[in-house]
C-alpha cells in the first residue's frame, strides 16, 4: 500500500517503488521478458508496465518476446533467451507447471529466473517469485460479499469467471467459495467468460436471464467487466451489488462516480511484471530491497489483493491500469 | 442382363433393359441422348446398383456389389466422363486401384515399364508415363483411360463414347486395338453416336429408347442406317446437312475480323474474316490449336499479337466480358469443366450470359427466365423436360444442348462452336445443324471447330484447315473434299 503513496507520479502505469540509491544507474543488464498473449486489458497492462519501466532505467536492456498462449512457443522463446545468454529472465508463464522444465534449464545455465504471477511447480526453477494472490483475490471478494450480506443466508450470489481452463481462475473461484462458506453462503450461478469485453457482455446477458434476482455478482476481471456492465445496463437491472476484479482504472472511476451496481473491485496488481523486472535488476546489480534490512532480494514476494470501494478508491486510482 | 430397372428421383432411367453380349463380338449400344446407355453400363460396372433385374456372367447369375467385384470378373469400363485423377501420373492412373506393389510400397519401375508397354500397344509411346494426367490434352487422357481399361485381365471391355474426343486417325487406331481384343475373345460393348463407326466396327446392335430396349441383337450388316435411326428416334431423319442458303454476298457485313492473331507457342498469324450469314469451319487434327484460336479470339486467353474486331470495333485483348458484350458467344470444348454450372438449374445455366435481360435494377424475374428457357429447351428437345432440373443430372448430349441454348438466348452476332455435336445423338445433331444454319441465315457469323471433317465440310460455307498452329488452306467448302482435307492435315506429319 505504501508503494502507491510513494509514487512520484512520473507514470500512472509503472510506479517507481522506494526511490533511493537503488535507482542510481548501475551495470548494464540484459533482461528477457516473456508473457502470455496480451489478449485482455490486464495482460496488456503487464507488458506496457514492463516496457515503461525499462524505459525509465537506462541500464536495463529489455528483450520482450511475443506474447503467446502457446507453451510450446513460450518455451522456445525462453530457449532463445538462454542461447542469447541474457542476464536474467522474467517469466510470466501461460502455465506455470508447463514452463518449469525450461526455467530449470535456465537456472542450470546460470541465468536467474524471476517467476511472475503463475507459480512453477518446482521451487528450484526460480530465484525470485512474484506472486499475485489469486486465491486471496477470491477470498477478498468473498469476504466483501459476506460483509455486505450481513448475515443474510438467502442472498443469491453469482460469479462470472475468467478463462475457465486456467489454473488461476480455478484458484480465484476456490478462494471465493471458501470465503463465502465461512458465512454460510454459496455460489448460485457461475459462468466463465474469456477476459474480453465481448465475452463479458455475452455471458452476463445470458446469466441475467438465468437469475431473475441476484444479490451479489463477482466478476473476475474488470476488462470483461465493461461488457458485463453494458449487459446489466441493457437489461435494466440494478438490484444487486457487483464486485469487480483486477482493478482497472475504468472500474475504479465507475466506483468513484457511484455506479449503480459496481461498488467494489479486488485489485490484482498489473505491475507484477514490472516488479519482476525491477527485482531482476536489483538482483543482477547485487542490490537489495531498500526498505528491508535483508541484504538479498527475497525469494518470494506475494502481492496483496485489497478491496477497493468508494471509500478508498482515491488511494488506488493512480496505480490502476488503463484497460 | 435381364430386366434391368434403375430409377433416379423423378426419372425412370431404365425400365427393363435386356442386353446380351457374346465373347469376341463388338456389341454396339445405340440410343438417343438420355436413353440410358451410360446408366446401363454403369450398372454393368457396378458403379450403380440396379433397382431390379439380374446380371448373368457366363450363364451364372452374379451380383455386382462394388466396382471391384465387376473388375474381378474382368469387366473394364471407359466412362463417358473421363475418370482420371489429375495429379497422379499416367502410370499411377492406369494402375489405380490395382497398383503393382510389394508390401504396400509402389513398384514404380515395373509400373512405368508396364505403362510404356500398354501405351505402345495403343500406338502412343510418346505419352510420358510419369507426366501428371492433368497436364495431358483430352485426347491423350482418353488414351490413358483406354490403357487403364486394358491394364487388367479384361474379358469384357465397355466403351462409352470413346471416340468423342478423338479425330479420325485416332478412331481408326482405336478400332485396330478393339479388333485385336475381339480376336482374343474379349467381348466389347461400344457406345457411340457416330453411326458410321458402328458400321465399321460393330457386330450386333442393341437399341435403347427412353430407358427400354426397342431392339436387341440386330446384325450390323443387315440393318440399314435409316432403320436404326428410326428405332432410336421413332421417326425417320434424312441424315443430311441443311442446304446452304446460297453464296454469301461479298458485300455482307464483315462481322468478325481477326488479323495476325498469335498465341506464342501455340499458333500464329491467324487471319480470319467472317461475314454476316456465313459459317466458317476449322478443320484439323486434335492438337492443331483450333480450340486455342477460338478461345483467344473470345478473350479467354490473352493473345501475344493480333487484333479481333467485331463489326469494325476492336475488342479489348484478353477480356471475355468485352467479347460477350460485343456479341460473341462460345460453346467450349469441354462442356463439363468449361461450359456448365453443374449444380445449378438448367434455366440458370441458360440465362447466365443474358441475366441483364431478365433483371430490373438487379432484381431477377425468374419466372420470365424459366419461360424463355422452357421455350428454348423445348425447341432443342432437351430431355427430360423441366428447366428446374440440375444440369448435372442430364445426359451428356442434353448438357451440350443447354450450352447451345445459352447463346441462342443471348442472340449473339458471332457464335463460336467448339465440337458442337460431341456426344449428341443423330436426331439432335440434325436439329443442331439446322439451327446453326438458320442462325446464319438470320445474319449471325458462325465459326465451327470439329474433329469430324464431314461435319465441317457439310455445315460450313468456307473451310480453314489448321495444322500445327497455322492456317494451311482456306477456301469454300464446296471446292474441297474430305480426302483433300485429310491430306492437308497429315502433310506435316509426313514431312
Amino acid at each position, binding site marked *: 500500500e505504501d508503494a502507491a503513496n510513494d509514487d512520484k507520479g512520473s507514470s500512472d502505469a509503472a510506479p517507481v517503488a522506494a526511490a533511493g540509491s537503488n535507482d542510481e544507474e548501475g551495470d548494464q543488464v540484459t533482461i528477457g521478458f516473456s508473457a502470455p498473449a496480451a489478449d485482455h486489458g490486464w495482460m496488456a497492462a503487464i507488458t506496457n508496465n514492463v516496457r515503461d519501466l525499462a524505459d525509465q532505467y537506462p541500464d536495463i536492456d529489455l528483450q520482450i518476446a511475443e506474447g503467446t498462449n502457446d507453451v510450446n512457443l513460450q518455451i522456445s522463446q525462453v530457449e532463445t533467451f538462454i542461447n542469447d545468454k541474457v542476464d536474467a529472465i522474467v517469466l510470466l508463464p501461460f502455465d506455470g507447471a508447463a514452463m518449469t522444465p525450461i526455467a530449470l534449464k535456465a537456472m542450470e545455465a546460470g541465468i536467474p529466473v524471476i517467476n511472475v504471477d503463475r507459480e512453477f511447480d518446482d521451487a528450484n526453477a526460480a530465484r525470485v517469485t512474484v506472486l499475485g494472490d489469486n486465491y486471496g483475490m477470491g477470498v477478498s471478494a468473498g469476504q466483501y460479499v459476506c460483509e455486505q450480506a450481513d448475515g443474510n443466508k438467502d442472498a443469491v450470489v453469482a460469479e462470472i469467471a475468467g478463462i475457465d481452463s486456467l489454473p488461476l481462475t480455478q484458484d480465484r473461484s476456490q478462494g471465493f467459495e471458501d470465503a463465502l462458506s465461512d458465512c454460510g453462503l454459496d455460489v448460485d450461478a457461475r459462468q466463465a467468460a474469456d477476459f474480453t469485453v465481448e465475452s463479458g457482455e455475452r455471458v452476463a446477458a445470458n446469466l441475467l436471464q438465468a437469475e431473475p434476482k441476484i444479490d451479489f455478482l463477482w466478476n473476475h476481471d474488470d476488462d470483461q467487466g465493461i461488457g458485463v456492465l*453494458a449487459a446489466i445496463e441493457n437489461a435494466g437491472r440494478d438490484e444487486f451489488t457487483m464486485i469487480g476484479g483486477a482493478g482497472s482504472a475504468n472500474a475504479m472511476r465507475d466506483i468513484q462516480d457511484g455506479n449503480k451496481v459496481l461498488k467494489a473491485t479486488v485489485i490484482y496488481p498489473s505491475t507484477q511484471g514490472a516488479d519482476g523486472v525491477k527485482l531482476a535488476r536489483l538482483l543482477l546489480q547485487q542490490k537489495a530491497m531498500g526498505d528491508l534490512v535483508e541484504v538479498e532480494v527475497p525469494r518470494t514476494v506475494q502481492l496483496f489483493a485489497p478491496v477497493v470501494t468508494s471509500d478508498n478508491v482515491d488511494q488506488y486510482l493512480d496505480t490502476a491500469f488503463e484497460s | 442382363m435381364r430386366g434391368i430397372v434403375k430409377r433416379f428421383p423423378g426419372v425412370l432411367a431404365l425400365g427393363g433393359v435386356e442386353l446380351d453380349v457374346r465373347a469376341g463380338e463388338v456389341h454396339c449400344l445405340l440410343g438417343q441422348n438420355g436413353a440410358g446407355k451410360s446408366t446401363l453400363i454403369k450398372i454393368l460396372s457396378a458403379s450403380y446398383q440396379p433397382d431390379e433385374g439380374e446380371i448373368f456372367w457366363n450363364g451364372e447369375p452374379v451380383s455386382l456389389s462394388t466396382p471391384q467385384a465387376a473388375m474381378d470378373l474382368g469387366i473394364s469400363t471407359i466412362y463417358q466422363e473421363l475418370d482420371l485423377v489429375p495429379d497422379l501420373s499416367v502410370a499411377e492412373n492406369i494402375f489405380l486401384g490395382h497398383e503393382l506393389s510389394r508390401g504396400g510400397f509402389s513398384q514404380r519401375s515395373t509400373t512405368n515399364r508396364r505403362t510404356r508397354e500398354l501405351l505402345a500397344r495403343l500406338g502412343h509411346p510418346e505419352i510420358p508415363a510419369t507426366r501428371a494426367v492433368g497436364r495431358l490434352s483430352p485426347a491423350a487422357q482418353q488414351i490413358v483411360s483406354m490403357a487403364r481399361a486394358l491394364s487388367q485381365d479384361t474379358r469384357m471391355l465397355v466403351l462409352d463414347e470413346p471416340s468423342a474426343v478423338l479425330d479420325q486417325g485416332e478412331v481408326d487406331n482405336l478400332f485396330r486395338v478393339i479388333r485385336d481384343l475381339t480376336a482374343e475373345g474379349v467381348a466389347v460393348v461400344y457406345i457411340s453416336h457416330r453411326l458410321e463407326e458402328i458400321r465399321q466396327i460393330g457386330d450386333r446392335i442393341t437399341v435403347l429408347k427412353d430407358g427400354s430396349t426397342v431392339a436387341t441383337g440386330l446384325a450390323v450388316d443387315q440393318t440399314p442406317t435409316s432403320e436404326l435411326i428410326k428405332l432410336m428416334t421413332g421417326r425417320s431423319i434424312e441424315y443430311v446437312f441443311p442446304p446452304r442458303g446460297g453464296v454469301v454476298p461479298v458485300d455482307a457485313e464483315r462481322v468478325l475480323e481477326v488479323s495476325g492473331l498469335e498465341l506464342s507457342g501455340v499458333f500464329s498469324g491467324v487471319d480470319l474474316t467472317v461475314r454476316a450469314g456465313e459459317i466458317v469451319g476449322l478443320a484439323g487434327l486434335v492438337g492443331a490449336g483450333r480450340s486455342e484460336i477460338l478461345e483467344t479470339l473470345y478473350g*479467354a486467353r490473352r493473345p501475344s499479337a493480333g487484333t479481333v474486331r467485331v463489326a469494325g470495333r476492336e475488342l479489348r485483348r484478353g477480356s471475355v466480358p468485352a467479347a460477350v458484350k460485343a456479341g460473341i458467344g462460345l460453346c467450349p470444348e469441354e462442356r463439363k469443366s468449361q461450359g456448365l454450372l453443374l449444380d445449378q438449374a438448367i434455366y440458370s445455366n441458360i440465362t447466365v450470359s443474358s*441475366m441483364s435481360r431478365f433483371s430490373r435494377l438487379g*432484381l431477377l424475374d425468374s419466372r420470365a427466365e424459366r419461360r424463355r428457357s422452357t421455350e428454348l429447351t423445348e425447341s432443342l428437345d432437351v430431355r427430360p423436360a423441366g428447366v428446374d432440373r440440375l444440369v448435372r443430372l442430364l445426359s451428356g448430349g442434353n448438357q451440350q444442348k443447354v450450352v447451345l441454348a445459352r447463346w441462342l438466348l443471348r442472340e449473339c452476332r458471332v457464335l463460336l462452336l467448339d465440337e458442337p455435336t460431341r456426344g449428341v445423338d443423330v436426331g439432335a445433331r440434325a436439329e443442331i445443324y439446322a439451327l446453326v444454319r438458320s442462325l446464319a441465315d438470320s445474319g449471325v457469323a458462325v465459326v465451327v471447330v470439329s474433329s469430324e471433317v464431314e461435319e465441317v465440310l457439310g455445315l460450313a460455307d468456307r473451310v480453314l484447315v489448321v495444322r500445327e498452329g497455322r492456317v494451311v488452306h482456306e477456301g469454300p467448302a464446296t471446292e474441297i473434299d474430305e480426302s483433300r482435307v485429310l491430306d492437308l492435315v497429315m502433310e506435316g506429319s509426313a514431312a
Partner: protein
Amino acid sequence: MSDQTSGTGKGPDVAAVENPLAPSQDSISVERAASGSEPTAGGGLMSGPFGRNLGLVLALLLICAAGVITAGDRFASIDNTLTILRFASTIGVVSIGMTFVITGGGIDLSVGAILALSSVWATTFATQAMAQDTHWLVMVFAALAVGAGCGLVNGLVIAYGKVVPFITTLAMLAAARGLAEIISERRTQIVTVDGFKDFFSTDVLGVPLLVVIFAVVSVAGWVLFNRTTFGRRTLAVGGNPEAARLAGINVNLHTVLLYVLVGFCCGLAALMLVSRTTTGTSTHGFMMELDVIAAVVIGGTLLTGGRGTIVGTVLGVLIFATLGNVFTLNNQDTSTQAVAKGLIIVVAVLLQQRLARRASST
C-alpha cells in the same frame, strides 16, 4: 421383355432392404463423398426452403423444447428471446456476408479481426472527437469504410494475386488484429459520443435496434442472394469459375466484390458490438471466424462453393445462440457445454441431412 423383369425381381422394396451394402442412392453421390452430400440437396434448391431446412428447424425446436423444460419461463420469456436475438445479431450480420463468400467459392478467416479493427478505428480519440464536432455518423462511416477497405484488400490479393483465400485472410487476420492493437495501444476505447449510443440503443416497437438491423440485413441478404444477378453470379463463380468466366462473368471483379461485401458486414457488426459493449477494442470478435463459418456450414452452404442458403445461415446462427443460452440458464459449466455442443452439432447435421434427403426424394 420387361415382363421377364418383374418375374425375376421380388419387388423393389425387398431388394432395397435386402442389400444394405449396396450404396444404392447414397453411392450415386455425384458430389464428393466427403461433402456430406445428399445427391438430392441440389434438388432442394428448388423444393422450397421448408423441406430443405426442416432438419434445422427441428433442431432449433428441440433446443427450445429443452430450454422450456429445463428453465421454464426463464427461457420462454420475451426478455430472454431478445437476449438471444441481441447476441445473435452481430454474429448473424457477419454470417450473412460469409454466406456469400463461401458460396462464391472462398472463405474469410479475417472477419473477427476486421471487426476488431473497425471497432477500434471507429472509437479512437480522433474519430470520436471528430464525431463530437460534427455528427456521430462519422463513426459509422469510419467503421464501414475500414471494414469494406480490409475486404477490398483481401479481394484484390485473392482475385488478382491468385493467393488462396485461406492464406490471404489468415494473413489479414494477423495483420488487422495487430494493427488494431497498435492503433488502440491495446486499450479498451470507451464510447463517449452520446448521439451514437442513443441511436443504437433505441427500440423499434419494442425490438432493439440491433435485432432490427439483423433482420433487415437477413432480408436484404436473402433478396440479394436469391433474386438478383449478383446472387446468381455468386453461385456461378463458386460452382465453376472457369465456366462462369467463359459465360462472360468478370470473375475477378465479382470475387473482389464478395470480400468487400463481407468486410462491409464486419464493419456493420463492429458498430453493433461497439454499441452493445460501449467499447471498441482489439479483442472484439476473437475467434469469431470459427463460429461464423460453423453457422454458415451448418445452415447448409457448401464449403466448396456453388451452393448456399441465407435462411439456413440464419437458422444456424439462431441454433448456436439458443444453445448457449439454454446452457447458461441451466448453469452448465464450460467443459460440459463444450462436449454437449460437439455432440449436438453432429446430431443436428445428421438430422438435417436425413430429412433433406427424404424431403427431396418424395
